C-alpha cells in the first residue's frame, strides 16, 4: 500500500506553518509568500476577461497563444530565443512544470543531482518519479557557490539531470556565468539535462545587475529546461501560473505529461499572467525596491544578533539563511532530537512565537541553519527581531 508515496514527506515549511498556526500571536518568517497583493493591472486584465466570458473553457494544452507570444517576446529581451508555438509551455505554477519535466525526462532508478541547500520540494518530486535525489553541497565559505569538483564526483552512469534553482532558495545566491558555464560543460561531457528553476530571476537589488541563464546559449537549447513562475515576481502565489521553455524536441515530451496532469494551466490565471507581462513592469520595480530595503533591514537585525547568527548576505530572492552559532539548544523534542536546526526553530516558535524554517529542510547541508523570509512587511520583520533580541539578549 502507498508504495509510491511512502517515502514522501509533507514539506517542512508546511509543517512549521501548521505548528505556527496554533500560536495566535505568531509572526511567521517561514513561508515564502510576498505580503503584497497582486497588482491592480493584473486584476483589471482578469476582470476584463471575466466580463467577456472567455475564461470558462480549457485553453490549448500548452496555453493561450497570446500569452505564449508575450513570453517569446519577453524572453527575446533577455537574449533567449524560443518559438512560442512549439517551445513554450504554460504551467500551473512552477511545481507542476517541475513535475512534468522530471516525469518526462527520467526513468525510475535514474539519479538527479541537486545542489543543496535548496528548495525542499525538488526532493519530493524526484522521489515521486521513482528517481534518487543526489545532493551536492554548496560552499558556504564562498558565498554558497558551486564546487564543480563535487558535481563531478556525484555523476554516475545513472545520472540524468542536474537540477538547480537560480537565484537559489533559501540562500539568495546568484550563480555566476562562469559557474554556470562550468556546470554546462559537465552536462555536455556526461550527456545530462540541466533544469534551471528561475522563479526569483526578477529579484534584482543592485543597479545593472543581471542574472545569466544557460538558456541563453543556443548550443544548450536541447539540454536546458528553464522554468519561471509568476508567483513571486508579481505576488501571484495563489494564481498557480508559470511557464517553462526548451527546444521543441524536449517540450513535446513534457507537454504529454502536462496534459495528463492538468490539461492546461488555469485559464483565468493565464489572463492574469498576460496582465503581468503587459503592464506589470512598474509594480515589479516598486516591489523590488521594497524587498531591497527589507533585505537591508533584516541584515541589520542579524548583525545585531551576531552572537547567535552568522550569515551570507543574500543577493536575490527574499530569503536569508543564517547559520546558528549556538552549540546546544535546550529543547526536548524526541522527533527531531538529532537536528539542531529543528530544535532551534521549535524552541524559537515556542518561546517567542516567531516561525522560521529549519535549515535541514533544504538538504543535509542546510543543517545548523534557519531560513527567514523577508517577503513579510517591515513591521513584521521588526516585531519578530524585537522578540528574538529580547529572548537571546
Amino acid at each position, binding site marked *: 500500500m502507498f508504495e509510491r508515496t511512502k517515502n514522501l514527506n509533507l514539506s517542512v515549511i508546511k509543517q512549521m506553518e501548521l505548528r505556527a498556526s496554533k500560536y495566535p500571536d505568531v509572526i511567521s518568517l517561514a513561508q515564502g509568500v510576498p505580503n503584497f497583493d497582486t497588482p491592480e493591472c493584473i486584476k483589471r486584465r482578469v476582470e476584463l476577461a471575466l466580463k*467577456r466570458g472567455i475564461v470558462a473553457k480549457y485553453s490549448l494544452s500548452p496555453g493561450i*497563444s497570446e500569452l505564449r507570444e508575450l513570453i517569446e517576446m519577453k524572453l527575446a529581451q533577455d537574449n533567449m530565443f524560443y518559438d512560442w508555438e512549439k517551445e513554450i509551455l504554460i504551467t500551473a505554477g512552477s511545481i507542476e512544470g517541475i513535475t512534468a519535466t522530471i516525469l518526462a525526462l527520467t526513468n525510475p532508478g535514474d539519479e538527479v543531482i541537486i545542489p543543496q541547500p535548496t528548495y525542499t520540494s525538488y526532493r519530493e518530486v524526484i522521489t515521486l518519479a521513482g528517481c534518487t535525489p543526489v545532493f551536492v553541497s554548496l560552499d558556504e565559505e564562498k558565498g554558497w557557490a558551486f564546487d564543480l569538483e563535487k558535481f563531478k564526483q556525484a555523476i554516475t552512469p545513472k545520472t540524468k539531470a542536474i537540477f538547480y534553482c537560480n537565484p537559489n532558495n533559501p540562500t539568495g545566491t546568484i550563480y555566476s556565468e562562469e559557474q554556470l558555464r562550468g556546470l554546462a560543460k559537465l552536462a555536455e561531457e556526461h550527456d545530462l539535462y540541466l533544469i534551471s528553476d528561475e522563479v526569483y530571476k526578477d529579484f534584482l537589488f543592485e543597479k545593472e545587475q543581471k542574472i545569466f541563464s544557460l538558456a541563453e546559449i543556443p*548550443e544548450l537549447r536541447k539540454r536546458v529546461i528553464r522554468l519561471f513562475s509568476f508567483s513571486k515576481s508579481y505576488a501571484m502565489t495563489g494564481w498557480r501560473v508559470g511557464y517553462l521553455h526548451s527546444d521543441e524536441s524536449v517540450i513535446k515530451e513534457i507537454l504529454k505529461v502536462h496534459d495528463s496532469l492538468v490539461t492546461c494551466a488555469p485559464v483565468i490565471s493565464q489572463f492574469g499572467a498576460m496582465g503581468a507581462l503587459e503592464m506589470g513592469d512598474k509594480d515589479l520595480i516598486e516591489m523590488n525596491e521594497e524587498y531591497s530595503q527589507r533585505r537591508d533591514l533584516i541584515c541589520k537585525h542579524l548583525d545585531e544578533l551576531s552572537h547567535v547568527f552568522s550569515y551570507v548576505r543574500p543577493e536575490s530572492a527574499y530569503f536569508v539563511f543564517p547559520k546558528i552559532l549556538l552549540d546546544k539548544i535546550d529543547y526536548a523534542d524526541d522527533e527531531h532530537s538529532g537536528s539542531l536546526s529543528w530544535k532551534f526553530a521549535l524552541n524559537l516558535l515556542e518561546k517567542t512565537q516567531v516561525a522560521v524554517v529549519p535549515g535541514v529542510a533544504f538538504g543535509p547541508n542546510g543543517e545548523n541553519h534557519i531560513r527567514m523570509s523577508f517577503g513579510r512587511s517591515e513591521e513584521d520583520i521588526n516585531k519578530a527581531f524585537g522578540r528574538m533580541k529580547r529572548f537571546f539578549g
Partner: protein
Amino acid sequence: MKKIFKIILQYYLKFITKLVLLIHRPTVIAISGSVNKSFFRDEIKKVLAEQGKTVRANPKNFNTEIGLPLAILNIESGYNSYRRWLPVLASAAKAIFQKNFPTYLVLELGVAQRGDMRYLFSIVKPQVAIVTEITQRYIESFSGMDKLMGEYIYLAKNVKKGGKLILNWDNEKVRRLKKYAKVPVLYFGTDSKEVDGRIEEIKKEIDGIMVKFNYKDRQNEIKINRFGAHHAKAVVVGQIVKVENI
C-alpha cells in the same frame, strides 16, 4: 462614471489622432490577425529603419480603441487611474505640434469584439494591410466564425486606394479575403505556386533559422536568430515591403 470617462477619452483621443494624421500624412502599414502581429510589426519596422526611413510602431498590444491612438501619438497610458490620465490628455493635445513625426506608422490592429475593425479604421486608414492568421481566438465575443470574418472582410474592403493587401496563403480564411479586396493582393506562405513571397525551406540550425524564399522569381536566403515558422513569414513580408518600396 468610469464608462462615461472612457467614452469621452476614446473620442478625444480619436479626434486628436485624426488631426495629427491629417497634418503629418504618414504612410500607414497595418497588421491584423489572431496571432503573430507583433513579430511582423517588429520585422517591418526593422526593414524600414534599415532603409533609413523614420518609423513608429505601437508598443506591446497598444492596438485597440484607446491603445492605438496612444501609440500613434507616442504617449503613455494612464491605465486605470484618473489622476494619471490628466497629464496624458495634455500630452495628447501637444502631440498635434510634434516635430519629426515619422514618415511611417507600423500598427497592429487588434480585433476582440464586433465592430472593432470599423472603429479602428475610422481613426486610421492604412495604405498597406497585412493579415497574419485567422483562428478561433476571440470567437467567444462573436456569434460565430462568420461574424469574426466580417471584421477582416471590412479590412480587406477598406485599404486605401492605391495601396496593397498582403495575405497569408497558408491560412484558408485569410486566403479567401482576396475576393473582397479593392487593391492588389500579394500572398506570402509556403503551399502554392500562386504565392508571391514563397517560403521554400525553413532550416533549423543551432542558433536560429535559415529562411529560403522566392519573391518575384528571385531566390533569397536570410538567417535570423529566432525560431518558428512565424518568424520566417515575418521575414518574407519584410522583404515584400522592402522590394515593393512601400
